[in-house]
C-alpha cells in the first residue's frame, strides 16, 4: 500500500501466510503514520488480525544528552519533546528541578506558567483534531483549526519569543514577563479560536461520515486502558476521570474552576469529544488566570537559583559571581530524586530526575504519555478495518519527539 514505484521487482509479492492471511507493511513512509511509525499488519481480508508497532525512527538521545549539560541547558531540549505543546514540557521540567531544590517560583510566574500550559494544551488538541479530520478527508476543518492554532502560537510567540521552541521557563522562574498587551491579544485570539472551533464542531460532530469513521472504532475498555498505563484524553474517553491537574494539583490549578470531561465508550468519537470540550475548559482556565494574575516578580529572589538581572551583574560583584557560577556550573540541587507529573496534551508527562549534587542531572527520565498510548495501539486496532487505523492513530495523537526522545 505504500509502494509507489511503477515497476515492481520481479520476485515481488505480498507475503501470504499459510492460513491465507496477508502481512502488510504500513509506514514508516505513510502519510497517515505521521512520518515515523511502522505498523506490521497481519490482515484477513480487510480485517486486522495482528499488529506489531515498530518505533525508533526519531530517537535523538534526549536523556543521554541531558545527563551531560546543566539543568537550564536542558530546557531548550524539552521543547523538542512534544513539539506541539512545548510550554507544558518546559513547565514540567522546571517544576521537577524546583521540587528537587525545594524552591518555588513566585506567584506571578506560576500563573503565567498555567496560562502558557493551557495555551499549549489547546494547540495540541487543535493539531490533533485538525490532522485527524484532514486524514478523514475533512480538509476545510484542518484550515479552520490550524488558523486558530496559529493565533495561539502567535500569542505564545509574543510572550516567549518562539512559536514552537520557546524555552520559556528557567529553574525558579521564566525568561521574560508577559508583554503589556497580552490580555487584549489573548481575548482576540480566543475570539477566533471560539469561532473556528464552533464552525469545526458544526462541520464534524454530527457529520455522518466523520461520525461513522470514529464511532466504535479504536475501542478500548476501561480495564485495558488502565492496565496499559493510558493517561489523558485516551483514558478519560473510557470514563476514568483522572487528570493530574485535578488529582494532584501543581502550580495554582487548584484556584480555578474547570471541569474534566469524560467519555463513556472509549472509542475515537469519545476521544474527539473529550478534546473538543477540553479546548473550551482550557480557555476558561486562561481567562480566570488572566483575571487573577498578580503583579510582582517572575523570578525567584535567590541568585543561586536564577540568573541575576543584567543591571545587577554589571553593577555589583555578588551578582557577577552568581552569574558566572550559574552559567558555568549551573544550579546545584541537593542529592536526591524526584518525580514530577504534569498534565500534557496527551496525558501525564512525568519527569524523573536523579541528582548527585552537581550541576548536571545524573539521570533524567521523561515519561512520555504517547509512549504508553502507542504501545497500546495494537490492542485498539485489532479486529477493526485497515481504514480505522487512520482514525485511531490520529486520535492517540502520537508525537514522535516525545515518543522516542
Amino acid at each position: 500500500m505504500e509502494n509507489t514505484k511503477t515497476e515492481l521487482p520481479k520476485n515481488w509479492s505480498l507475503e501470504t501466510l499459510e492460513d491465507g492471511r496477508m502481512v502488510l507493511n504500513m509506514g514508516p513512509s505513510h502519510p497517515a503514520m505521521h512520518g515515523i511509525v511502522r505498523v506490521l499488519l497481519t490482515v484477513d481480508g480487510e480485517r486486522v488480525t495482528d499488529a506489531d508497532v515498530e518505533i525508533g525512527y526519531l530517537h535523538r538521545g534526549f536523556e543521554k544528552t541531558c545527563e551531560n549539560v546543566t539543568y537550564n541547558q536542558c530546557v531548550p531540549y524539552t521543547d523538542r519533546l512534544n513539539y506541539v505543546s512545548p510550554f507544558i514540557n518546559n513547565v514540567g521540567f522546571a517544576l521537577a528541578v524546583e521540587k528537587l531544590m525545594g524552591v518555588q517560583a513566585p506567584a506571578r510566574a506560576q500563573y503565567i506558567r498555567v496560562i502558557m500550559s493551557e495555551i499549549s494544551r489547546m494547540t495540541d488538541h487543535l493539531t490533533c483534531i485538525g490532522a485527524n479530520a484532514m486524514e478523514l478527508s475533512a480538509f476545510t476543518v484542518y484550515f479552520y483549526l490550524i488558523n486558530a492554532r496559529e493565533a495561539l502560537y502567535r500569542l505564545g510567540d509574543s510572550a516567549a519569543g518562539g512559536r514552537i521552541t520557546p524555552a520559556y521557563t528557567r529553574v525558579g522562574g521564566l525568561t521574560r514577563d508577559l508583554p503589556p498587551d497580552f490580555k487584549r491579544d489573548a481575548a482576540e485570539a480566543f475570539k477566533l479560536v471560539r469561532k473556528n472551533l464552533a464552525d469545526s464542531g458544526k462541520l464534524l460532530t454530527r457529520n455522518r461520515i466523520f461520525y461513522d469513521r470514529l464511532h466504535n472504532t479504536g475501542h478500548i475498555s476501561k480495564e485495558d486502558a488502565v492496565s496499559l498505563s493510558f493517561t489523558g484524553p485516551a483514558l478519560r474517553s473510557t470514563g476514568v476521570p483522572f487528570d493530574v491537574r485535578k488529582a494532584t494539583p501543581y502550580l495554582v490549578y487548584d484556584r480555578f474552576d474547570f471541569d474534566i470531561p469524560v467519555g463513556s465508550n472509549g472509542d475515537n468519537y469519545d476521544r474527539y469529544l473529550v478534546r473538543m470540550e477540553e479546548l473550551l475548559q482550557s480557555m476558561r482556565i486562561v481567562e480566570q488566570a488572566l483575571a487573577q494574575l498578580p503583579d510582582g516578580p517572575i523570578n525567584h529572589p535567590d541568585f543561586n537559583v536564577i540568573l541575576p538581572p543584567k543591571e545587577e551583574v554589571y553593577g555589583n560583584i555578588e551578582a557577577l559571581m552568581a552569574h558566572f557560577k550559574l552559567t558555568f556550573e549551573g544550579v546545584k540541587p541537593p542529592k536526591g530524586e524526584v518525580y514530577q507529573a504534569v498534565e500534557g496534551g496527551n496525558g501525564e508527562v512525568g519527569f524523573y530526575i536523579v541528582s548527585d549534587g552537581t550541576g548536571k542531572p545524573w539521570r533524567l527520565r521523561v515519561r512520555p504519555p504517547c509512549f504508553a498510548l502507542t504501545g497500546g495501539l495494537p490492542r485498539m486496532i485489532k479486529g477493526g478495518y485497515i481504514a480505522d487505523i487512520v482514525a485511531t492513530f490520529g486520535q492517540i495523537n502520537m508525537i514522535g519527539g516525545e515518543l522516542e526522545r
Partner: protein
Amino acid sequence: MTTYLLEALKSKFPAAVLETSAFRGDETAVVKKEVLKEAAAFLKDELGFDFLMDLTAADYLPREPRFELVCHFYSTKHNYRLRLKCPVGADDARVDSLTPLWAGANWFEREVYDMFGIKFEGHPDLRRILMYDGFEGHPLRKDYPLKKRQPRITHRD
C-alpha cells in the same frame, strides 16, 4: 500522610524491604529484586495501585549493585503515588517482568532493556525498541561514551 500504605508493604515483606524514605514528598520503597514482582502484585491487588505510571532504570556506575530499576505507581483509589525501586547487579542483570500484571509494562521494559541491558524474565517479546537490531551496547549506561559512533548498517530488505 498516607504512609500507612508504605507500612503495609513493609509488614508484608519484612525481610525484603531494604529501605523506605521520603524526599520532597515522594515516598520510596527499595525492595530486593527477587520480590519485585510479588511486591508489585501486592501493591496492585491489595493496596489499590492500579496504574504503573512509569518504569525505568538508572545506572550508578561505579557503585555496586550498579543499576536500579525504578517503578512509579499511582493509585486512583488513594490518589497517591509511590516509587518502588530495586537494585540490580551488572553480573546478573535480570528482573522478573511486570507485564503479566500491567500490559503497559511491555514497552517500558523493552526500553529499559534497550537502554540499559537489563533483561526481564517472563517478558513476551523482549527486543530493542528505540535502537535498531545490530546496535552494539546500551546507550544510557554510564560507560557508553556520549559521542560514540557506530558503523552504518547495511540496507535491510
